[in-house]
């Protein structure tokens, strides 16, 4: 690759390549954020339950 | 061993006292097969090409639908618990139940299949392979369906869950079975597919009982 333009168009296959990477980004983010949020919510709930 | 023979006889006696219940997989098989020509087209040449696949998909679905009642009635009236506590090993009890249920549910499917084959212009010369492949196939499906039935026996709405669990596992049976029936219809030699189907049957008979017994224990444990 040498030019930004070529990078974006991906030799005409841009739509497919970037939607694939987009899907991957969504999947990876979701898989990371969901458990982290679940963990912090659990910890908060347990801590709240603890202090009478 | 005596206990298993007695269990088999009791199951058969129970089954034949309620013939209505036996008919459901058969009716399902017939109706499912009849739907395909209505959905596709009545032209004999088209039907002949899809006949093996249609017969096999319908038999597979009928086999799975019939499995739901495998342990249901015993679970509801408490006899399943007594079978768990009985002296006979649960794996063999499960195998006996699957066999008795197959005798009443699966075997009639096999016997009926040539009749439905005629409706779909399936060549009568290939009926032998069709019968043999469905014989193996319905046995394997009974074993796989029994694993699904054992896993869902304690659940309320297990009707929909059982096919979801079992159908992915039934893919190899469908592929080899439908393939052998199709090759026979084309006059080719179907033995390769039949051998593979037989291998699946042997694997099923040796491994499935352990999965069924384990699943039954888990279903009854809470």
């Amino acid at each position, binding site marked *: 690759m040498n030019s930004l333009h070529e990078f974006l168009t991906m030799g005409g296959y841009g739509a497919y390549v970037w939607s694939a990477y987009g899907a991957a980004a969504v999947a990876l983010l979701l898989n990371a954020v969901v458990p982290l949020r679940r963990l912090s919510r659990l910890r908060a709930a347990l801590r709240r339950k603890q202090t009478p | 061993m*005596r*206990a298993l023979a*007695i*269990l088999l006889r*009791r199951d058969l*006696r*129970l089954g034949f*006292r*309620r013939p209505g219940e036996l008919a459901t997989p058969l009716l399902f098989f017939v109706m499912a097969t009849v739907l395909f020509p209505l959905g596709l087209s009545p032209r004999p040449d088209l039907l002949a090409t899809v006949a093996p696949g249609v017969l096999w998909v319908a038999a597979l679905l009928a086999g799975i639908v019939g499995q739901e009642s495998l342990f249901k*009635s015993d679970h*509801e*009236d*408490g*006899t399943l*618990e*007594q079978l*768990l*506590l*009985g*002296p*006979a090993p649960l794996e063999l009890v499960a195998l006996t139940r699957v066999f008795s249920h197959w005798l009443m549910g699966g075997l009639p499917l096999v016997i009926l299949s040539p009749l439905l084959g005629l409706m779909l212009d399936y060549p009568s010369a290939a009926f032998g392979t069709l019968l043999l492949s469905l014989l193996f196939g319905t046995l394997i499906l009974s074993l796989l369906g029994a694993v699904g039935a054992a896993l869902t026996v304690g659940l309320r709405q297990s009707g929909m869950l059982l096919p979801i669990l079992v159908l992915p596992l039934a893919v190899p049976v469908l592929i080899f079975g439908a393939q052998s029936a199709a090759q026979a219809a084309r006059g080719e030699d179907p033995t390769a597919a039949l051998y593979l189907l037989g291998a699946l049957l042997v694997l099923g008979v040796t491994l499935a009982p352990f999965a069924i017994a384990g699943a039954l*224990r888990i279903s*009854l*444990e*809470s």
Partner: protein
Amino acid sequence: MKLELTAQGVTIWRGERCLVHGLSFSLGEGCILQLAGPNGAGKTSLMRVLAGIGRLDEGQVSWNGTPIRASADYRRELCYLGHSNALKSHLTSIENTNFYQSITEYSSQITSQQILERLGLASLADQPCGLLSMGQRRRTALGRLLIGHARLWLLDEPVSSLDAEGVSLVGNLLRAHVEQGGVAVLATHQPLPLDGLPVQRLELGTA
């Protein structure tokens, strides 16, 4: 061989509730353990754990010293009567009893006909169980106690839907069993004529 049913640190969770926590007891020959407690206290769950069907989350149950999961003869020496009568409604009482007779390994001296007579069901022997009343079905289920040499009886509400005569029948059966050195665990709300028998009480649902 001295019979003994022991439980060490048995803990049972069902869903999010801890029904039994760290329960230990030992039940010797000729004794009865009576489980008491309100509905939902875990009597049935504990009974099923003792029978080897229910899942226990911690601890261990053993029969004559060997854990029941590994003990081969536990299932032979046990008779479990749960809430459900374990009878096929399309089979007659005699057929049901014969079925249970045939699958116990050693032939008991008493025939199915005699069992039904002892339970006062002789006249209904060839009636499909589906047509019997709840009490009559419960009596047919009690027939299982007389089959074989069950040394350990696990009875969950044995007298439910039984009339006064039935209750005393169960009392006598239990008395005979215990006097011959049998062991029994009993969960019941109605009082049973057990006076004079060594009964341990275990209160559940207070943990």
